[in-house]
Structures are given as structure tokens and as C-alpha cells.
């Protein structure tokens, strides 16, 4: 075990896979000489050289399209999009090409690539350095979507993503990059894609979340515990595929689900979870399914702490649910 920040854990996973597998290459804006604007690729250029660590021209479309070509031709590319807010320049490649590649080719060619992108707010980043665009991609068959929230999961899931035979969009909550440290297993360490993490056990209310809001949910759970409400917190970790077993087990126990994410409410990933709970577990419910999310506005620069699903907003929703 070594104490690592979230960013260092990403770095460690990339280095580990690049040492293990020569097919793994890294490409993106400022990932080489500069080591990435969040320093996630620091030192890789020196260790692996410019054939395997490529600073690219400023073009998200080319980064994603080229990554797909590399993947189709036997490499294992890990492309970095500097902020998930800029992924839309490559949206066509991602949605029309990457996602449908296997299906279109009926399996003749595959797209084993990873696209890493910092996601979410809380860093005074304003409209275009804070967004949570995951549901554009969860609504696109063929893509896997992963959002780790701890350094260990970041390492274990990134290694799994690189080894996965399908394209994985790997969202890294940027406000956790340098604010968080924990013991991370050394060497070989994988976390399976599609398995949730039980963060905290409880019996009255279930909070289902992912990414940086896991910590706000835990803080809210601790607060309401003083009022006698026992809260279970589930970190989904992976959205496509997501761990229905973990959700249903908990909802059967508490009957009171609260779903939390930073992305806007309307058509957010929470809607999918809520609909599935309503479809399959409606008779287990003791309270309406609640959502605490970003509001349906572009991400604002000012007052972002009020816009985000913060501890207070989550605690209020938990109280509301528990009151039923």
C-alpha cells in the first residue's frame, strides 16, 4: 500500500499498464511535456518516450478518432480530453463511430479504448470547466461509463477499463484530484466495472450517488444520524453497466431512495435509476423516490456552492424521505 492522491493513483494505473502492456499508449492535449494540466500523466513521456505518449494538436475530434484507429489496429489507447466540457468537439466520433464500431462491424473490428476526462464542479471553474455530461453517453449504446470516487477505485477501475475490450469513458471528478489521499494497493489491482461500492451501511434511507457527491452524501448522512436517521450510501462507480443488485438490495431494506448527482435534473442519470426502481421495486417503497441534482441551468460561475447538491440539500432530502 502507498498513500496516493486521486491524480497520483491515475498516474500509477497508467504507468502500471504501460509497463505491463506495450500496446498501451497515451494521447491528448498537454499530456506529454507538461504531464497533463492536472498532472495525471506526469513522468510518462520520460519513461515511455514520444511514441507512446503523444501531445496532440488541439482537436478533440481527432484525438477520439485517432484513438479509435489505434484501437482498431491493435493498440490500447488511453486518450485524455482535458475537461469533459470539451468532449463535444469529439461527440460525432464518440457517438457515431466509437460507440457503434463493434456493432457496425459485426465484431470484425473492436474499439478497446479509454477516454479519460475530468468531470464535475466545485473548483470555481465556471460554465466550461465544471460540467457533468455523463448522461449524453449513458444514453448511447456501445459505450461504458465509469466514475470512480476514491484513489483506490481510480487505479483499479482504470486498469480494468484499459483491459476492457470495449470503449470506456472514464470520468474523473476533478475536485478530488488533489484534495484526497488514501492507501492504494501497490502493483496489480483491479476493480470490476459494473460493481457498486457500499460506502456506509444504514437502515432508513438509501442515498445512491457517484463521483464527488459521494463525500457530500456521507457528510449529510453523518449529520442526520444525530437526528436518529440511519443512512446507507451507495457509490455506483460505474454507470454503464450499473449495479442493479446493489441498488435493489438496499432499496428493499430501506424503502427510501434518494438519488444524488451534479448533472442537471432533467434527463440526468438519476432519472434512469429512479425509473428502474419504480419499475421493479415500487412495492418496496416507503417514500417517493427523490433526486438531489444540479438545477436545469448551464453550470454557473457564481454561487456554485448553492447550485451543487451540497451536504445541506442532501440532508434535507433525506429528512423529507424519512418523514414519510
Amino acid at each position, binding site marked *: 500500500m502507498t498513500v496516493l492522491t486521486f491524480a497520483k493513483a491515475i498516474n500509477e494505473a497508467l504507468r502500471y499498464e504501460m509497463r505491463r502492456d506495450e500496446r498501451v499508449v497515451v494521447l491528448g492535449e498537454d499530456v506529454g511535456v507538461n504531464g497533463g494540466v492536472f498532472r495525471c500523466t506526469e513522468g510518462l513521456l520520460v519513461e515511455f518516450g514520444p511514441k507512446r505518449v503523444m501531445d496532440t494538436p488541439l482537436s478533440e475530434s481527432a484525438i477520439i478518432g485517432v484513438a479509435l484507429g489505434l484501437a482498431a489496429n491493435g493498440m490500447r489507447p488511453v486518450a485524455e480530453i482535458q475537461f469533459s*466540457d470539451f468532449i463535444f468537439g469529439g461527440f460525432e466520433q464518440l457517438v457515431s463511430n466509437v460507440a457503434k464500431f463493434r456493432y457496425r462491424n459485426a465484431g470484425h473490428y473492436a474499439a478497446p479504448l479509454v477516454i479519460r476526462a475530468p468531470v464535475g464542479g466545485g473548483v470555481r471553474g465556471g460554465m466550461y470547466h465544471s460540467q457533468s455530461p455523463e448522461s449524453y453517453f449513458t444514453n448511447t449504446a456501445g459505450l461504458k461509463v465509469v466514475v470512480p470516487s476514491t484513489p483506490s477505485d481510480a487505479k483499479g477501475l482504470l486498469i480494468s477499463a484499459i483491459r476492457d475490450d470495449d470503449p470506456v469513458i472514464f470520468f474523473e471528478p476533478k475536485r478530488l484530484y488533489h484534495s484526497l489521499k488514501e492507501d492504494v494497493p501497490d502493483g496489480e489491482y483491479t476493480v470490476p466495472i459494473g460493481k457498486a461500492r457500499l460506502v456506509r451501511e444504514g437502515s432508513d434511507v438509501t442515498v445512491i450517488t457517484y463521483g464527488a457527491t459521494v463525500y457530500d452524501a456521507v457528510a449529510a448522512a453523518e449529520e442526520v444520524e444525530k437526528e436518529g436517521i440511519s443512512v446507507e450510501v451507495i457509490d455506483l462507480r460505474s454507470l454503464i453497466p450499473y449495479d442493479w443488485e446493489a441498488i435493489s438490495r438496499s432499496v428493499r431494506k430501506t424503502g427510501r431512495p434518494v438519488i444524488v448527482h451534479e448533472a442537471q435534473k432533467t434527463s440526468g442519470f438519476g432519472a434512469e435509476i429512479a425509473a428502474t426502481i419504480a419499475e421493479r421495486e415500487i412495492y418496496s417503497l416507503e417514500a417517493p423516490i427523490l433526486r438531489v441534482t444540479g438545477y436545469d441551468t448551464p453550470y454557473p460561475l457564481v454561487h456554485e456552492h448553492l447550485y451543487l447538491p451540497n451536504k445541506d440539500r442532501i440532508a434535507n432530502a433525506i429528512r423529507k424521505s424519512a418523514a414519510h
Partner: protein
Amino acid sequence: MRGWWEFITILGKRRPPDPEDLGLERELLMRMYRLLVLTRALDRYLLRLQRMGKVALYAESLGEEAAMVGSALALRPEDVVFPSYRELGVYLTRGVPISEILDRQLNTVDDPLKGHEFAVFGDSRFNIVPAPTPVATQIPVAVGYALAFKIRGERRLAVTYFGDGATSKGDFHEGINFASVYKPPIVFICLNNQYAISTHVSRQTGAATIAQKAIAYGLSGYRVDGNDAIAMYLVSRSVFEEVREGGDPVLIEAVTYRLGAHTTSDDPKRYRSEEEVRYWMERDPIERMRSYLISKNVMGEEEDKALWAEVEALVSAEVEKALAKPGLDPMVIFEDVYAEPTPQLREQMEEFRQQLRMERVMRG
């Protein structure tokens, strides 16, 4: 199709011509110089405000002032500018008051863009369309804006500014290609400061210049000394006049250098040598203009000192005023999403209002 192979400079010449030979009056030269000084002074203050935590993020103009001021000075008020996020010198040249730029950067109650986004500036009163942070996305929009001028027969033009990095994006190529077909009154100005964060322009393109990219689209491209406000002004003035009169779109490449960091979260020591920076320091656009004006007796040393002192005092007084202003009401978050909020958004506004009330109660 003209121009791209030549490097146009005035102040870079061994013996720069006299102002009279260039047809430039003292008044104009002094206005140009004052704007350069003002841009630098305000730029420094904004950087300081960022370091104090008052501004979220700031992208310096240091070293690029001449390319901004020289070109913008050739615009008319009715022309429309589509900047990216670094063009402080353009805003000031358009006559935007310092107070308004500070309100914007500090997100005071008078922020013309209501704190929705940072760094970028824009104001319809000055015909400046606020920049998007996603690089190059303003370029096709500027083409469309210019096309509307053409459709209505107005003799106005649109100018869009962008960096060397932006020329790698599809939006640049698709925008300029579209313009080459419909030929609206637009001028594309690439501020080639040689870096896109850490990436040198030689890693953006295999082409020797940006200007030559115009040729592939059947348009003219000019490569200008971007650290030379006079060359930038003269080229822009003649290009703008031609385009206003119905000439084809033009690409201008201003070759300059970003002397500072990319933004306040960047550390340029990681990717470029101090030697390189020193080389460009010696070609500081403001110092170049200053020595020209002094050598040609347009301005005296004392006058220069007085100008700097006057500008510094002006900026610092405006900063004091802006810092004393209150911030924006949280409800601004919900403004301008649509002309009329949707029913769902209205509900959320109500929920947010309640959240604010509770916050206030809890804070006592």
C-alpha cells in the same frame, strides 16, 4: 490570394520609416501607445486580483498587446468582434470602460454578463459577442453573423480572434471554408502566440505558417509582426476597408509570443526555456513602440513616464471602486436560460428560493 509568404513588419525593420512616411499622425500613434500601456497596466492588476483570490482564473495578455490593439484600432464601432478569452487589448481599444471589465472579472453586482461565466468579456453595446471557452467554437458563428450583414446589404464586418491552437479544430477549417463559399464580410485574426498551453505551434500543424492555410480555401492570408502595433494597424486597416467594400474574407496571422503563463493555473517553466522567453522579452511590443516614438520625437521620456503614472493611477482607482461593490444575487443563476423559464425551471427556482431562505435562517 495574396500575401502569406511575406512577413510584414515596420518596427522590426533596421530603420523603421518616419510616421509621416507611413501617413500616421501623432494623435493616432499616441492613442495607440496609451492603449498598449493601459492594456498592460490593467492586465497586471487583473493578475494580482487573481492571486488575491478575487478572480477565479485569468489569462494574461502580456506580450500580445500590440496584435490586439493594433488590429482593433482599425475597426469601426459598428463592426462586430468575436474574441476568444485573452483579448483585453481589443476590449479597451473598443472603448469598453475599465470599470466594466473589472465588474466582469470580479463578478460584481454590475457584471454585464451576470456571473454566468468567467474570464470572457462581451457586451452588445460595444459590439463584442462574449467568447465561448471551448476553443474555436466562435469562428463559424462569426461567419454567420457576417453573412447576415451581407444578406441585408450592410457595410459592416465581423472580426474573429483565436489562437494558434484553435487552427487545429474543425470549427476553424469548417468556418473558413464556409466563408470561402459565401464570402461574407469577415476577417479571421489568428493571434499566433506560439503556444497552446504547453504545446508549441510546431506541434499543432506541419505547415510553416498559419497564414498559408488561407490559400487552400482560395483566400488571402497575411503574416504580420504581431509585436508591432503599427504593422498590425496598417495591415488591418487596409484589409478591413477592402472587406467592408465587398472583398473576400481574409486570414491575418499575427506572429507574437505569450510572455506570461497560459492562465493562472499554468507553469510555463515546465515546457519552455528561459532563454526563449528572454529572446521575446527583448522584442516586447510596448518597449518597441516606446523606443520608436522616442527616437522619432513623437514622445519624450518625461511624457512617457507621466503617461504610465496617469494610467497606473487610473487603473488602481477603478480597482478600488470595483472591489467595494457587492456581489451578485444568487437568483441570477436562473436568469437567461430561456427567454421565458420553462414550467420545470420555474419550479426549481422556487425550490432554490426556499433553499436560500433556509440557508439564511441557519446562518442566523
